[in-house]
């Protein structure tokens, strides 16, 4: 049995949009990269997402947002993570997010990385692996 620490990721769809094709593609890619991916399904509140992230003890929380509500949802999720003493969970996301909003979200620390349509899934895998490595080596 390998004692290699498995990376756990929660892929969540907060808010009202009902399109989870992208979320599923990403979930599948992460699975194929050897990660354990918890998928929550559609229409989650930020409270539900954060509670699930805590119970599942994930390393990474990925939000998929296509509704345009990213400037509300990312800050709210981040805030709830901090409130619940879970600010160490890496918060990333994807969806339809304009350039300037991406800058702002990253600058203010509401998202550590954002992946918009067209980005190869390998890049997401790479990013998570690198982030996990620097996290564990600094810990």
């Amino acid at each position, binding site marked *: *049995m*390998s*004692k290699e*620490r*498995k990376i*756990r990721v929660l892929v969540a769809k907060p808010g009202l949009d009902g399109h989870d094709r992208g979320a599923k593609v990403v*979930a*599948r890619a*992460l*699975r*194929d*990269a*050897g*990660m*354990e*991916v*918890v*998928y*929550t*399904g559609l229409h*989650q*509140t930020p*409270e*539900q997402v954060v*509670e*699930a992230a*805590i*119970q*599942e*003890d994930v390393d990474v929380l990925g939000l998929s947002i296509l509704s345009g509500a990213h400037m509300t949802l990312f800050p709210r999720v981040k805030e709830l993570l901090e409130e*619940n*003493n*879970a600010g160490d969970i890496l918060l990333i996301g994807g969806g339809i997010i304009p350039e300037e909003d991406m800058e702002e979200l990253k600058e203010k620390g509401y998202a550590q990385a954002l992946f918009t349509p067209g980005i190869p899934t390998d890049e997401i895998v790479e990013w998570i692996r690198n982030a996990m490595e620097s996290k564990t080596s600094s810990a």
Partner: protein
Amino acid sequence: MNIVEGLIKGDRRALARAISLVENEDSSKNEILKGVYTHTGKAYIIGFTGSPGSGKSSLVDKLVSVIRREGLTVGIVAIDPTSPFTGGAILGDRIRMQEHTEDKDVFIRSMGTRGSLGGLSRATKDAVQLLDAFGKDIVIIETVGVGQSEVDVVKNADTTVVVLTPASGDSVQTIKAGIMEIANIFVVNKSDLPNADRTRTEINLMLDLDNKKKEWRPPIISTISLTSEGIEELWEELKKHRQFLEEGDRLAAIRRERVKREIVDYMEHIIKSRLWEKISGTTLFEKTIEKISQRDLDPISGAEKVLERVNLDNHEFPE
């Protein structure tokens, strides 16, 4: 050990972290399990098993609503398959358990099988203990979707529920030697589908064929998760089975058996790793392997020869 303290005090993050550490075989695993043990034994453990898509997660979701109405707290361990090729997994049981994600008295944990073949993951038993120590009144294990012979759940649950669907009616006969034997309660889910009655009848016929007179005949409950039909009845039957086990020393006997299996497992594990430390890499061991490869020696005699040197007979076991 503050993770244990946190868990006992009801810190959800500590519980979640403890499950990960134990599941990842972290060096702190044994300390955590030792630390919580005296706090365990209070939870009642219910196992749900059945084929993929039979509706286990939805059923558990609805059942939890009924249980919560009685004020009881619930822990759920839900298992999904790990890929044998990449080691990855999609854990999707939460999708069906939406009703309780904001209820702080329900704790849901998804686990990948991680190479285990009996329908559970290797750390399921440990996760159940941690939820028990955390103070959950009821702990529910939901197995990975199973075929016929993955029956590990019965070793870990006090009451085992086998979930079937009308579509499986024809195959009831064929699967009866495997999971059909472990049910304390049968559920025919999706019973609004055609042939639900036939499935019930076939289960009944199968139970009639049992010539050993049993004190508990598994009841068959028809449910429809979508409309919550039959869920109250299922909970009533679960309580009845618990009551049945708690009469006399049936439950105590089941749990004693479980403890025995546990201590044997741990002893085997300890002996194995100690032996391995001594033997691996030694010339005697390498030479023996060589001899067996050359067909100069058979593996059974080889094993006996190597173990002679460890001197297993040297110790008298105190009565």
